[in-house]
């Protein structure tokens, strides 16, 4: 079977005033249909860039990207992919209900989900008529999460979706995402700075390194599914955590290490 996403020998060089920036160099990975894969790595290693290449926002300067067996452009036109940006990117003149339904409206998604229901799932019931400017950063991010799920895409690309959330909400949203994924079996590429989060959610963790951005390790998570909170307390979880930590690039800033998580 074709992989859902195939990235082969991809280079991404951005032109810049002070000389070109190599965001990605010779990056290759495949992601299978219905696989949940996390990307983790230091700031600036090209995680967002990788997602943007898959979503056809940028085109690689070298190598090739295939999405659902075709070019990223074709997949974009067929609305197979939904990218949840690192920032919420809400339109300030639409209330949050309208922001969520805008994605449905433009993509004309047929098997879309109910915006009101999604908003209540992310804990924003009763706030539907509020404008983005009236919400906290974490609330805005939850609206963006609801919007990303609204079109019910086959492939979901999530760029640090929970970064602005407190730990409690973060865990709840993670469990919710997991339950959606278990039911609908989407392909998910999930960028995070938290190693335990990556581990808890994923089938595979791709560890990246910076300057230039590249894949450093590809770790398969050996934890049974379905997973629940109790898993985080198990020996096998800690063992895997240790394994991933040992693969992380040294000396570089990673948020999770500062948090001591």
């Amino acid at each position, binding site marked *: 079977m074709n992989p859902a996403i195939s990235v082969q020998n991809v280079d991404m060089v951005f032109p810049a005033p002070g000389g070109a920036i190599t965001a990605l160099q010779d990056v290759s990975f495949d992601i299978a249909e219905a696989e949940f894969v996390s990307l983790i790595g230091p700031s600036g290693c090209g995680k967002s860039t990788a997602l943007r290449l898959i979503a056809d*926002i940028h085109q690689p300067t070298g190598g090739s990207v295939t999405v659902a067996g075709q070019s990223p452009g074709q997949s974009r*036109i067929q*609305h197979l992919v939904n990218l949840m940006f690192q920032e919420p*990117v809400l*339109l300030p*003149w639409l209330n949050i209900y309208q922001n969520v339904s*805008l994605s449905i409206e*433009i993509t004309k998604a047929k098997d879309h989900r109910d915006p009101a229901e999604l908003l209540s799932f992310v804990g924003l019931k009763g706030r539907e008529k509020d404008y983005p*400017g009236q919400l906290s950063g974490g609330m805005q991010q939850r609206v963006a999460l609801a919007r990303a799920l609204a079109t019910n895409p086959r492939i979901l690309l999530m760029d640090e979706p929970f970064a602005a959330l407190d730990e409690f909400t973060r865990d709840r949203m993670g469990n919710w995402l997991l339950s959606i994924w278990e039911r609908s079996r989407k392909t998910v590429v999930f960028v995070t700075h938290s190693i335990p989060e990556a581990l808890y959610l994923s089938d595979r963790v791709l560890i990246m390194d910076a300057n230039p951005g590249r894949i450093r390790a590809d770790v398969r998570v050996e934890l049974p599914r379905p997973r629940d909170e109790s898993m985080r307390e198990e020996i096998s979880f800690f063992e895997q955590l240790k394994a991933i930590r040992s693969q992380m690039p040294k000396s570089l800033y990673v948020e999770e290490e500062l948090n001591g998580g």
Partner: protein
Amino acid sequence: MSEANKLYRRLVPYLPAGVVFVGAILLWEGFVRGFDIQQFLLPAPSVIGATFGENFDRLLHIGWFTTKEALGGFAIGCSLGILVALATARWTAASETLMPFAIAANSVPIIAFAPILNNWFGIDNPLSKMAIVAVIVFFPMMINTVRGLTLVDPSAVELMRSYAASEFEILLKLRLPNSLPYMFNAFKVAAALSMIGAVVSEYFGGNRSALGVFITQEAAQFRFAEAWAAIIIACVVGVTFYMVILLVERLLIPWHASVRQAER
């Protein structure tokens, strides 16, 4: 009781402005009387008020005449400004070529062309004043609209592209709403400019029932209270015009930060 209370609360923020206004009028009156200022230098508010009462119908008539010129010019100039902005913003190259010219033209004292346009359209024809007003308001309108259409959050454009939205959808859902606050800023500027443009271009000659013509003629005949009464009409119209736009802005873009802040 609570209704009256509510009204009172709504009026409280305007109290200082009202006090200053009334105070200024009283000071003016006292100043003119106390120092025995000559009529032709500065008539007292009470005298202007009395003149206003005597010539009310006439003043209203000429005020409306000039207001129509200002409104007509405003409508023509703003529509053209928006249309040209839409056309050029569609083709980035065109807007990049045109913008420096528009910005340069915006700093030209267009009112200086009033005698020329009076000549082109006929001095008595209100169209000559509308043309001046239209040219004056065109540039700020166009420049601001182009800015609003182009200074869009790049991430929002990428979001729309990731949904495979067409350029037209991006214009409709993103660029146009984004440009509304810019357009309202331009409307406010244009409202003030249109009344100034109409009255000043009438100073260079025009129909006898026009505000600018009336002011110059009355002043030439040393009837300063009448001239002042007409000036006050021009001021009231200008301020009203501005306030109407402010009101529409509040109704139309309640999400905008400047509007929300004003409501607090």
